[in-house]
């Protein structure tokens, strides 16, 4: 999508601009503050989540702390999560986790950046809870017999990240080598590595 601001022809964009300009005109916020918030949003990419997952793969004690209190554990890595709480859930040979927000599009932006469009679609939001196995199959995830699916609907103040299973054949990899293997989709639960 081209980011031109020459034409504001959608109601929500019009409202956003009117509201922002009114706040700036009254001195509540400044344009510089708006720009820096946007910069912060774009600086956050799934690479942050990749750092967290790679650490969990190589450091069992960190993994335990991450599962017990996600917010505190990622702060150890210098990642600030804000007022929301982070809940990490781990994939195992017995269970596969899938994240959705049925009510809107809550997403762990602090670790993964902005959500993909499909995550915000009505189709994903309604089907991921009701027929998660069919949705996973469409993403190419075919679960072994007897593996449980655990869906997490982020309805309120928690944000979720999946710790995918470490890929086979990476035993000798360093933490730095593991980080780029961790994809955004694997941390939402729609991909296995």
């Amino acid at each position: 999508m081209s980011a031109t601001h020459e034409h504001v022809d959608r109601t929500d964009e019009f409202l956003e601009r009117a509201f922002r300009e009114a706040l700036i005109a009254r001195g509540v916020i400044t344009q510089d503050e708006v720009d820096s918030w946007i910069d912060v949003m774009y600086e956050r990419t799934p690479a942050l989540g990749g750092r967290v997952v790679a650490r969990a793969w190589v450091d069992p004690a960190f993994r335990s702390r991450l599962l017990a209190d996600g917010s505190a554990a990622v702060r150890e890595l210098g990642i600030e999560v804000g007022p929301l709480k982070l809940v990490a859930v781990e994939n195992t040979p017995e269970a596969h986790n899938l994240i959705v927000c049925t009510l809107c599009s809550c997403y762990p932006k602090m670790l993964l950046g902005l959500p993909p469009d499909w995550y915000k679609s009505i189709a994903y939001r309604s089907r991921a809870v009701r027929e998660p196995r069919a949705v996973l199959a469409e993403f190419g995830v075919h679960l072994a017999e007897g593996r449980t699916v655990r869906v997490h609907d982020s309805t309120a103040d928690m944000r979720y990240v999946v710790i995918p299973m470490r890929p086979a054949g990476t035993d000798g990899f360093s933490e730095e080598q593991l980080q780029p293997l961790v994809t955004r989709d694997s941390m939402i639960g729609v991909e296995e590595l």
Partner: protein
Amino acid sequence: MSARFEPGNHVRVATRDHFGHVRTPRYIRGKRGTVERICGDFRNPEELAYGRWDGDTVALYRVRFLQREVWDGYAGDSADTIDVELYEHWLETEEG
């Protein structure tokens, strides 16, 4: 504010309509689940949405439900679960 429920407690989500902003999905109302964890105390989104920033806090829980008890004709495994965050005033004690 202390939490009324503990992990492992059996609860049922209230079946009621709510006018205005609410974070309890309709599909989970009336369903029976088990408290998975206490998330902490948060301001009530049903008040926050209308500008009441200083209202009382309410305990938030993650409640785990069996998918086969949530959806008629669920096609997956009988052990599949769905976890939903629910505020205390939407939860009732469930016997057994």
